[in-house]
């Protein structure tokens, strides 16, 4: 046996660095595209000069005021939000799939989205202001996970299975409560607002939404990136993780806490957007394999790219916004079916 013996089984990808380059350049290209495209005609030159105008005010001299403001106040924060939210879904979906040892779970496994949906619906029913809707969505998203997590602690056996079950139960509970609120809502006024929120959209994003979103999501992404190799070990199950010197319960608690904060932050501004957290990790595994050292960064980049693409389609194709949740579902399902068919590496 010699270490220099050629591998009998060539790596799946002949040029892994090309794959890597494409994955990480994709969100950059799509971010640029998101700034260039929109319902209002603005030339690429005007977009570029508008972007630089805060630093060089004379550059924007001959650009229509509306165009400059649209780029800086509408397109830029919205593209940033799509980037952050997509990255968040990619990262949390991957992390949840790892710690639940289950490639079929997504960011909503512990009911965070359902809880957030209920919080948003409640705030839409009680108040009208956007910040209250976001605050309620965020708080109830956390509450749902808290209930699922501590509910599962009531049972001694097989914590992972009980946690999954609790997540499903709490999610269903909040979905029922959402249905109740929709029933109570004024059909002319609150009901469409609730329905639209539940379908997911970045229409109302402004700069004021960005700082909190960025802090939570970037913080969460950094944390998950730092521990990403440990996700490999957690995905083997508690017994093996323990025998390899980890404290799986505490590690999973940190991952759940972090992923929940990120998902709640994302969902509280975007509304319910499904499938991204489920589909993106599969795409990532197909491209770079299951090792979370490479998979997590790839999922983050792919999630950001996917969400930028979806949001650009949602806001440019028709005069009316296409709900993001509808788009991600319509595209996510066929993509997932395709990936599952192509994927022969286990997962």
């Amino acid at each position, binding site marked *: 046996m010699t270490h220099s013996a050629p*591998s009998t089984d060539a790596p799946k990808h002949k040029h892994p660095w090309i794959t890597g380059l494409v994955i990480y350049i994709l969100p950059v290209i799509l971010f640029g595209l998101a700034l260039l495209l929109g319902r209002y005609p603005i030339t690429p030159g005007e977009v570029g000069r508008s972007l630089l105008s805060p630093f060089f005010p004379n550059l924007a001299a001959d650009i229509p005021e509306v165009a400059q403001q649209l780029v800086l106040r509408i397109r830029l924060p919205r593209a940033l939000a799509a980037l952050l939210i997509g990255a968040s879904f990619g990262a949390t979906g991957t992390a949840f799939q790892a710690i639940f040892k289950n490639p079929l779970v997504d960011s909503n496994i512990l009911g965070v989205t359902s809880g957030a949906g209920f919080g948003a619906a409640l705030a839409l029913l009680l108040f009208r202001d956007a910040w209250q809707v976001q605050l309620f969505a965020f708080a109830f998203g956390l509450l749902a996970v808290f209930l699922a997590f501590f509910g599962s602690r009531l049972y001694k056996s097989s914590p992972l299975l009980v946690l999954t079950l609790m997540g499903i139960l709490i999610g269903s509970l909040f979905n029922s409560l959402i249905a109740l609120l929709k029933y109570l809502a004024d059909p002319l006024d609150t009901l469409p607002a609730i329905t639209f929120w539940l379908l997911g959209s970045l229409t109302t994003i402004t700069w004021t939404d960005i700082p909190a979103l960025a802090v939570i999501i970037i913080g969460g992404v950094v944390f998950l990136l*730092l*521990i990403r190799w440990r996700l490999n*070990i957690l*995905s083997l199950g508690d017994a093996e993780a323990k025998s*390899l*010197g980890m404290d799986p319960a505490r590690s999973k608690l940190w991952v759940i806490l972090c992923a929940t904060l990120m998902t709640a932050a994302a969902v509280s501004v975007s509304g319910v957007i499904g499938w991204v957290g489920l589909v993106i990790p599969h795409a990532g595994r197909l491209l770079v394999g*299951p*090792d979370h050292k490479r998979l997590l960064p790839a999922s983050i980049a792919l999630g950001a790219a996917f969400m930028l693409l979806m949001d650009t389609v949602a806001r440019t194709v028709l005069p009316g916004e296409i709900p993001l949740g509808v788009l991600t579902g319509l595209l996510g399902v066929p993509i997932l079916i395709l990936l599952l068919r192509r994927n022969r590496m286990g997962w």
Partner: protein
Amino acid sequence: MRLQASHLNFSYLPGQTVLHDVSLAVGAGETLYILGRNGSGKTTLLSCLAGLLQPDGGEVLLDDKPIRDFSAAERAREVGLIPQMHTPVFGFTVREMVMMGRAPHLGWLGSPNHEDQAIADEALAQVGLFELRDRPYTEISGGEQQLVLIARGLAQKCRVLLMDEPTAHLDLSNQHRILEIVNQLSDRGLSFIIASHSPNNALSYADRVLLMTGGWVTAYGSPQETLTESLLSAVYGIRTEVITKEIDHVQTPVAVITQRPIALEPESLHEPDSFLSRVFSNGQNDPQLILVTGLSGVGKTTWVTRLIELARNTGLSVSGILSPSTFKDGRKTGIQVVDLATGDRQQLAQLRENDSAAIRTPRWAFDAAAMDWANLRLAAAETSDLLVIDELGPVEFFQGKGLLAGMARLDEGKYRVACVVVRSALLPNALQRWPNAIVVNGGVKG
């Protein structure tokens, strides 16, 4: 290096103790096998030894330091555990799997570097799987997966490796491949504690063996001391013979389970020197128990009835209890009880009036007086050439009711040859009680 457990007690739920007062020790380069039936506590013991479970009583010591004083990472640098084989969900490559063994040597935020990769590759080379390093773990064979896990233990640089049924589900050649590698690694000073279902692997490879029954230590010592016919028979509840065979010019002990039930025709009683006639002649000195077994309706009672007739024809005395069924319109409607010594019979049980599948009450109404009568006859019967008890069922084995006088008589050995009818499902219980019984297939051909 010395991993030692003293007087371990453990229970998952209060009042349900899984380990009772278990003590063992393994030194550098030693291999300890833990044998026992399913559910005897082997896996729990391994978890306690690895420090994953905290025992309720007793202590696990690593080089005389309590293992619970070690941090998780410190512990994992000393003791590795390879759980029962399962396929992970994600298709990590072989090298990625082995690299995970480096976890206890890295900080919480750390990830393996080139040095760790070199250690992993070295470990893979040691188990002979370097060529497979880029293959998905989920796509290699079961034996190779087990070797990958051993390599992971090597990369972990631990000094004791605990393995839970490493050869389960593996074919002979793969079993051999793994055990040989374990053997070679143990020669280099790595210690192994292996939970196994194979006494023969233990006979060949173990330095020491721990035999467990229901969480208790039945025996602990060298393979020669522990893997004896009687202990194996007692632990597994099935008669086991240990024979010595010369393999490659070496006298090697091999544990063999004798085949049973055996097919035996009652008619062979008339043939001189047949197995059955030898049983009867042996019975003059040493009580011989024949368990007549088989599925319901194969003709166990018929088999016994024929034996009784033949015995009587031969001039042998017969006593005991026979319970033939009574039929009406081709349907079993009752059970009688016959005292074979006198020929007296009584109605023992009758089908309940409102018998239907929907009613969950027992179908048979037993007559307590007839049962008492049968027990009296069994207790009082003189020691005859052939004692028949038809039959011992779940009531006798599990509820402590029914033909208890018969059970007592068998336990006391107050018979020459006894012929007892037991249905197949209860055979392990019967053999646990009377390990040396001869088991006969009660099916009547033709």
